[in-house]
């Protein structure tokens, strides 16, 4: 019976509504008391008292303070009324019974109060832990933001300083190099600002994709052309299946998504690796894959990489940790999904699945 009560009180806790708790707490006291009352010839009143206290402890473990207090008062009243002589009266005859009743009531209240205190302390500890975690995250984000914005700015400022203060002494090769550095740094800055703006648009729910009929082959070709501008010696492979049809997509967003994936693969795998982009239809869905034969991801990283501001372990400097979370966001505003898996013998594969804009239209 006690076990059943324990299970019930756990279940009720999940429901967690206050009204439920009053009701369940009272029920957990009344029903067993009633059973004891039926067999009161076989069960001594001390046993009933202990059983009620045990039930109260269980209730105190799961419920809020007020339902527990109600159960405590109720159990004291029931014990007095139904089990203490004279029965069916709140009046207590013998002084020792009076003492037992007071003790019972006191233990019941203590039980409730102590459990309440423990839970308050737990709650506080948990809040403090969360706060510390939030601070830590805030610190990491702020550091990576300031690094990502200040490094290209440092390049631009220092390069322009150099150009402004030289009086014809700088070799022209150096001058050309400085101008190139400014250009690279500004583009990098622009990319980061774009990522940051897009992620806030997606998060705020304001970004609605404008889906138009697109040639997926075109999209992939343009992404690769842009991504390989600064790439080293990677081998790039593209495979588009014959069943590929024009598809309704937000071209700009999907370009951004694919660019982030391809750029990531190029950036974080060693030279001489390959990056392979595949496009095909699966049923009515468009399936895009970007895979490489780099090191792949650590098992515990596979889910974390899509988190905002998450940076891979042992990764080089650079990057806000937004690229993949942005990719996920873009797939999701298209009502699609993105998945990551490691592949054999080594490497990683991102799979993007986008359902058609309106299935009924196609039929």
């Amino acid at each position: 019976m006690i076990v059943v009560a324990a299970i019930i009180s756990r279940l009720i806790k999940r429901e967690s509504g206050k009204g439920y708790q009053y009701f369940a707490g009272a029920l957990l006291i009344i029903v067993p008391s009633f059973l004891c009352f039926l067999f009161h010839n076989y069960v001594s009143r001390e046993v009933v008292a202990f059983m009620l206290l045990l039930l109260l402890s269980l209730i105190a473990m799961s419920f809020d303070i007020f339902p527990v207090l109600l159960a405590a008062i109720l159990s004291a009243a029931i014990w007095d009324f139904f089990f203490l002589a004279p029965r069916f009266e709140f009046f207590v005859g013998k002084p020792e019974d009076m003492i037992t009743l007071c003790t019972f009531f006191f233990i019941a209240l203590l039980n409730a109060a102590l459990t309440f205190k423990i839970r308050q302390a737990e709650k506080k500890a948990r809040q403090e832990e969360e706060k510390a975690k939030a601070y830590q995250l805030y610190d990491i984000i702020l550091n990576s933001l300031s690094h990502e914005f200040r490094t290209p700015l440092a390049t631009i400022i220092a390069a322009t300083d150099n150009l402004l203060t030289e009086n014809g002494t700088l070799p022209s090769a150096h001058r050309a190099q400085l101008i190139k550095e400014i250009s690279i740094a500004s583009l990098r800055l622009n990319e980061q600002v774009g990522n940051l703006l897009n992620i806030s648009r997606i998060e705020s729910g304001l970004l609605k994709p404008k889906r138009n009929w697109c040639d997926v082959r075109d999209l992939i070709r343009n992404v690769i052309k842009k991504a390989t501008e600064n790439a080293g010696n990677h081998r790039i492979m593209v495979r588009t299946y014959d069943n590929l049809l024009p598809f309704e997509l937000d071209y700009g967003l999907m370009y951004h998504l694919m660019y982030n994936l391809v750029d990531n693969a190029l950036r974080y795998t060693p030279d001489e690796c390959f990056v392979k982009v595949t496009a095909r239809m699966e049923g009515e869905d468009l399936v895009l894959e970007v895979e490489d034969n780099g090191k792949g991801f650590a098992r515990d990283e596979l889910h974390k990489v899509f988190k905002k501001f998450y940076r891979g372990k042992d990764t080089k400097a650079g990057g806000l940790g937004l690229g993949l979370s942005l990719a996920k966001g873009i797939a999701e505003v298209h009502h699609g999904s993105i998945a990551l898996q490691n592949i054999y013998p080594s490497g990683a594969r991102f799979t993007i699945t986008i359902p058609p804009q309106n299935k009924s239209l196609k039929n």
Partner: protein
Amino acid sequence: MHQKEILVIDDEIQIQRLLEITLSSNGYKVHQAGTAKSGLAEAAGSAPDLIILDLGLPDESGQSLLLRLREWFNKPILILSVQDREEMIVQALDNGANDYMVKPFRTGELMARVRSCMRSGMAAENQPVMTFRDLEVNLQTRTVKLENEILKLTSTQYLLIALFAKNEGKVLTHQYILKEIWGAEFIDQLQYLRVYIAQLRRKLEKNIDNPQYIITESGIGYRFVGK
């Protein structure tokens, strides 16, 4: 005089290329390293006259690399980092950095700091008499002259100015100055230092609102500028 050599330890390729151009066009020979490991090896191998160190390296924190370098490398180390929090700066200076610059930086300022670091690296043994513009500090006779007039100084004021003179161009943290002049137990007595700096400035500076000798590095310490 041989060409001065500078080792740049920074993992940002753009900053590397830029510093290479900037430093080499100012007559320095530049060595480069992108990781703490290669930086340590390069510092030992090419024995540079100065190291420019970034704090955010991929394989090890710059602060710990700084400590490891300081176990044997006694030439100046200049920190160049995006980290602009005071406690990071103070920590780097306490760990043995000679100076600290925050990115983004102006190249003119960087070159001035590099030159000042190089000077302090050279003046390892102090000459008894040092001159800074109108100011002359004589460590032998314990006298300080401003425009050839002997300044009346208390002994603490003299110790302060001597400490600054020996570390010309270098940022001294509050804690370092307090420890050197008053002793380790006074390390938190910032108000002492403020009072004495104010007194010194009144005697040294032409315009107390725009000090030219003792420069405040807000939240960090003071820098004595003699050139």
